[in-house]
């Protein structure tokens, strides 16, 4: 089973992400912010990371940069899932190493379609 790390400071968002991805057959590890996400990514290799941008402490862009600096996360797909939709932020996400940008709220079918495209 492929495992996805879902990073978001909103409990309801994590719950909905987890629900949607588990229903599609993926394992989900939840993290409450960037630092928690980084710690969990180090503890267990995951197949994909879905992260929010605006979180207390370490934000999504910093998490992506930290993950891309790790050899075992250089090629792991990372998607931003955020309320932000500005082109400048998307460009920053792309430069940091994100593979895609999803604007909240997500539709579960469209989300799992993208996830399947990236990790099968």
């Amino acid at each position, binding site marked *: 089973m492929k495992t996805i790390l879902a990073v978001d400071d909103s409990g309801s968002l994590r*719950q909905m992400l987890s629900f949607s991805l588990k229903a599609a057959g993926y394992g989900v590890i939840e993290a409450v912010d960037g630092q928690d996400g980084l710690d969990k990514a180090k503890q267990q290799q995951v197949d994909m990371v879905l992260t929010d941008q605006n979180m207390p402490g370490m934000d999504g862009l910093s998490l992506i940069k930290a993950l891309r600096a790790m050899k075992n996360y250089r090629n792991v797909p990372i998607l931003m899932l955020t309320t*932000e939709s500005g082109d400048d932020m998307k460009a920053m996400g792309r430069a940091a190493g994100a*593979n895609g940008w*999803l604007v*909240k*709220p*997500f539709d*579960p079918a469209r989300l799992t379609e993208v996830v399947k495209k990236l990790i099968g």
Partner: protein
Amino acid sequence: MAAHDMSPSERLSAQVMHLLSGVSEHGDQHLAEVERDLVQMDVLLDEAIKKLCASFMAIHHAVDRQQEALDGLRAEGRLAPGHAARFEALRGEIDRNVAAAVTGLQFQDMTSQLIGRMVQHLAGLRDVFGALDTNAPVLPESSNEALLATLSQISDRVGACCTERAGGVRSTVNQRHMNSGDIELF
């Protein structure tokens, strides 16, 4: 000093200070109330969404168990073909509504971010009202020059408040479409 003993210049100074002090005090009181209500609104929304999420999960599990029971009946051939088709159509309807609920339950996250931004802006406005208060009911010197100097100091303090929060809190929630957001793969 009684008002009738004051020179026009002193009365003007006293009135200006009284006005600024009143605006500062009452403005701050009203903003504090708004801030308290916004924080409480955020707490209530959070609680509402937790309860809705819990109910949603419970309903979903119950529907799953019901579906398992129906699948069992169908496997045993105890469902009429017409009923089986009807249940299949209902299952599709349930899936569509579950997807809509998953999308809908995410709006609290965005609302909460907006409330947080409003609270920070209120704090900025309270700083501005605080800067209006001279803590001096009557100016030590009563000349127009002294009044102008005091007003200039107040103006500088207000300017400093604005500079401190220059740019404000960046807006991160600009959703206009109430359906799901865009997806872009790089």
